[in-house]
Structures are given as C-alpha cells and as structure tokens.
C-alpha cells in the first residue's frame, strides 16, 4: 500500500509474561497479509534457519520470516557471538524499516536484545519512531524497554494466568507453540 490514502503506521508492542505474544503477532501478520499488505517478520534469538510451524506456513505462501539467533541466552556459550548475531539481525530490521517497502514489519523477541544491552535502546527506539509514514512495526517480548513503550501507539500485556509448562510440566506443543 503505497497510495497516498495509507493511514499512519502504528507501533504495536506485545509484552508480558503470559503466552501469546509471538502468536498474536503472527495473527496480525496473517490478517494484514489477508488484506493484501506486504508483511515481513524478523525473529531474534530463535535459531538461524529455524523450521517451526510459522516458518513452514510462511514459506508456502511467500511470506518472509528471517530468524537469526543461536537459541536462548542461557544456552549460549559465546556471548560475543550471540551479541554479534543480534546486531546483524538488527541491521536487517533497520534496513527493512527504513526502506519503507513493507507495510507491516514484526520484530519478534526484540525486547530481549534491547534489555540485555546487545542493542542500543535509543537507536532501536529512534529508528522505529522515525519510520516511513505508512509502516507498521510490531515488537514482541517480555519486559519491553521503557523507551520502546514510550514510542508505541498500542501496548498489550499478556498476563500469565495459567501456564501448562509451569503448572503441569507439559512441553511446548508443535502447531500450538512453535
């Protein structure tokens, strides 16, 4: 949607300890895609080349999901490498945001590299705040940094009321969780 009627793009954050943050971002991506918008997702932390349900589904319909990461931090043996991957992933995000060719861009799990200080919070916040007029940016992850919250139009907190892994020791389920 590059016509002049395009509404101003929003900044949307899904945060909180409950499940559903990435899932809801995927849903928004699918909704926008259904309306003919161009969409793109960048995943932080998840393994480079991850093949979860969302990657398989996206591939089938030509939606781009780019994962760059080495798993979650407590699994990382080399913090320099982990930081470098996040910095590289951010460069791809930034380029996509500034190019203005994609209507909806999702930065999945992007709160973590900001919180951990691998990415500069001011740089991330100002890049998103200064995006092209029509571009929507969605950020997911726990504990969204106050500088990200400050530039957001919509912030939804997923509150963890009942969690099967914690409460029942049930594993993440294919198709539901990944």
């Amino acid at each position, binding site marked *: 949607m590059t016509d002049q009627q395009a509404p101003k793009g*929003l900044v*949307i954050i*899904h945060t*909180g300890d*409950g*499940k*559903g943050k*990435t*899932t*809801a*971002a*995927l*849903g*928004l*991506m*699918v*909704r*926008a895609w*259904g*309306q*003919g*918008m161009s969409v793109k997702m960048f995943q932080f932390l*998840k*393994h480079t*080349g*991850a*093949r*979860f*349900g*969302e*990657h*398989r*589904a996206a591939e089938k*319909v030509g939606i781009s999901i780019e994962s760059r990461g*080495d798993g979650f931090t*407590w*699994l990382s043996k080399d913090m320099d490498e982990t930081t470098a991957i996040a910095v590289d992933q951010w460069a791809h995000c930034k380029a996509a945001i500034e190019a203005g060719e994609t209507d*909806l861009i999702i930065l999945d799990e992007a709160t973590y590299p900001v919180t951990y200080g691998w990415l500069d919070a001011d740089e991330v916040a100002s890049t998103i705040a200064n995006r092209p007029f029509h571009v*929507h940016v969605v950020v997911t992850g726990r504990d969204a940094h106050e500088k990200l919250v400050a530039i*957001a*139009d*919509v912030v*939804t*907190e*997923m*509150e*963890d*009321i*009942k969690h*099967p*892994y914690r409460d029942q*020791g*049930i*594993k993440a*389920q*294919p*198709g*539901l*969780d*990944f």
Partner: protein
Amino acid sequence: MADEFPRDDPAVTPDGPDKSAPARKGMLVVYHGPGATKEIAGLGVLFRANGRGLPVRHMRFKPDPRGEPSGDNLALEKLGIPSHVIDGPTEEAAAELWSKAVRHVSIVQEGVLVLEGLLDAIAEGWLSAAQVAEALSGKDSLLHVIVTGETAPSELLDSADLVSKMKAIKKRGSDAPVIAGIDY
C-alpha cells in the same frame, strides 16, 4: 558455530527447556481480556498448525460487524482453512455453531480448533459455561482448542491448560481511524 540443538527443539522457547514433561497433549487454551489482541492470537495458532500440515478449523461466534470481508476471513480463505461464522446474534445461531464445534472435538483427534468469541457467546447467555467447559475438558485427543473472548467464566478457567489475559497498557484514542489489516 556448532548447531548443538535440534532446530525444531521445543525446549528452545523463552520458557526454558523441560525434558521430563509429557511429549504431547491436546490443550485447552483461553485467551481473554479487553485487548483486541486475543482475536489475532487464534489466527496465529491456525497459521502455525497449518504450516505443520495439521488439520485446523476456525469458528467465529460473533457476527462480522462490517459489510466487507475482514483480513482474517480473506487470509483463512487464501490459506484454505475452513471457517464458520455465526449466522446472526441469536441463541439459535450460537447453538448451531456450538454443535459443529462439539462434533469437531469428538471426531478430529489432532490439530487446532479456534473458537473465536465463544466466551462472548457465553456472556450473552446463548451458551452455558458449564456445558462448554464439560465438552472441552477431559478429552484425551491431541486436538488443541483455543477459546477467545472478553471475559472467561470460572468453569473454563478451571478446566483450561493455558490461560493468558490480554490487557491494554496503552491504546489509541477512541477517535483513531480503524485500519484495514490492523484492526480487521
């Protein structure tokens, strides 16, 4: 760098690894709260499960408020995901759609069934919370059932495996324009 973890390892989630847990279980998931985000969470699960080639189905217990098809409807159609929308805002229509859901739960043993706005149909008094909870709990199949709506009755909260509440921390003003592809 060495790839030490299987790429599809469910242990690699923000919630950490747990190797001792039962491998598979059909879950009852409740996404509720005032935030609009609950609706799109169901859509996200459908997308994921569809990507895995699992049988998926969408049922919506709220009539579409707009004359034009929503992004959700258009996307489900493009993805080839079967979707049923309530015929109208009536008890009869809710009962008819609910009977479809019950049939699905009894026949289909895996995949995902999203019952969007089911909680709102209960809140309207069209369906009984106790009946719904009974039909959706205690199943031993691998089917995941996702239930959404504004407020969840205690019967469903008790029987659910996973409950998240969507709270609006920051929202647009009531005069903000409705945006296609974001709001519907």
